[in-house]
């Protein structure tokens, strides 16, 4: 085999390995989100049945969900986002969907609800949101409509997560969105509630009946 051909083979093998690894991660993330959606539907169905008993008093306690468990649904009509939020911000959790920072409030509860996601997947269009845009969250018990009141880009080391006395939703992702590599900044969106409704018969876009 000529050296040039050998080098070509080596590059093709290495490139294929990288592409396969990245593709596998994306595929596992997609599957994880689908599983989370199914689990969320089941959870909503159970909550409907058991409403008035264990889960009657407000949203579930913050931090009570296990890592990777679906805790909410996030809808941002402007950018066509409809994803199930998973508990945790570890790489595994973030690979499956937007992650709810453990210990922060759940959307609809008093306090700061922090939701983060990767800029190359679920929050790839988060940068298109501006002040005044609408975000909707659904937990087991409440459906809250939020309006964005703050948008800023900070250094990744900046201490931006703060305790809030009232209800606040904080969405974070890496910035710049199109940056190739470890992004140096973070995009922080802050929203406050403008409407609230009891979450009844929450269904996904597919309008599937809970299994």
């Amino acid at each position, binding site marked *: 085999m000529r050296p040039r051909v050998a080098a070509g083979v080596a590059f093709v093998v290495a*490139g294929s390995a990288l592409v396969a690894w990245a593709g596998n991660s994306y595929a596992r993330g997609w599957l994880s989100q689908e599983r989370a959606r199914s689990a969320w539907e089941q959870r909503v169905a159970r909550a409907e049945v058991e409403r008035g008993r264990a889960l009657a008093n407000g949203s579930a306690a913050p931090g009570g969900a296990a890592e990777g468990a679906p805790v909410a649904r996030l809808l941002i009509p402007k950018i066509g986002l409809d994803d199930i939020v998973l508990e945790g911000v570890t790489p595994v959790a973030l690979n499956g969907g937007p992650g709810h920072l453990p210990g922060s409030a759940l959307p609809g509860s008093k306090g700061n609800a922090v939701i983060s996601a990767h800029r190359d997947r679920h929050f790839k269009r988060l940068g298109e949101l501006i002040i005044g845009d609408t975000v909707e969250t659904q937990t087991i018990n409440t459906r809250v409509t939020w309006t964005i009141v703050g948008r800023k880009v900070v250094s*990744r080391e900046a201490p931006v997560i703060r305790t809030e006395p009232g209800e606040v939703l904080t969405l974070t992702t890496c910035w710049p969105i199109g940056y190739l590599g470890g992004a140096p900044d973070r995009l922080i969106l802050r929203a406050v509630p403008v409407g609230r409704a009891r979450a009844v018969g929450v269904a996904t876009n597919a309008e599937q009946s809970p299994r």
Partner: protein
Amino acid sequence: MKTRNVFALGALLLVPAFTAGAQFTAVVAPPPAQKQAVAEAAAKAEVPRDTGRRATLQAMSAWVDSVAGVPAPSAIVSDSVAGDVVVGTDSTPAPVEQAPATTRFADGVRAPDTASPLPFLLVAGLGALLFGGWLLVTGRREAPVPAVRPPRAS
């Protein structure tokens, strides 16, 4: 293109990709500034300098150790006013504190680490695939050089 150049170009393409990929999974603390270590040791040396010659010399030793990167043992110096005073001469520069990744809510923490190496790895992989394909195609097109036999002397 010479074979040597092909390998060199390949190495230039792949090595930075893997190196950069590693940086996503590990926090690389910048090396502590040498000047800072010297300043810290000099500041510590200010304390015993007023008390006696011996203390000053020990502080100098600590200063030299700090420059060389060797942790110096604690020294007991005689103070002119009080009794023996233990002066901490640990001149090892403190590591630069890097905030750990945020995994739980607390007031004043930074935003969760949402950096992902996947886009970069995908682009690097596609680049390597294309380059490798180009090498294969052009390498096979090159006709083998026919062996030229010297004419037989009849």
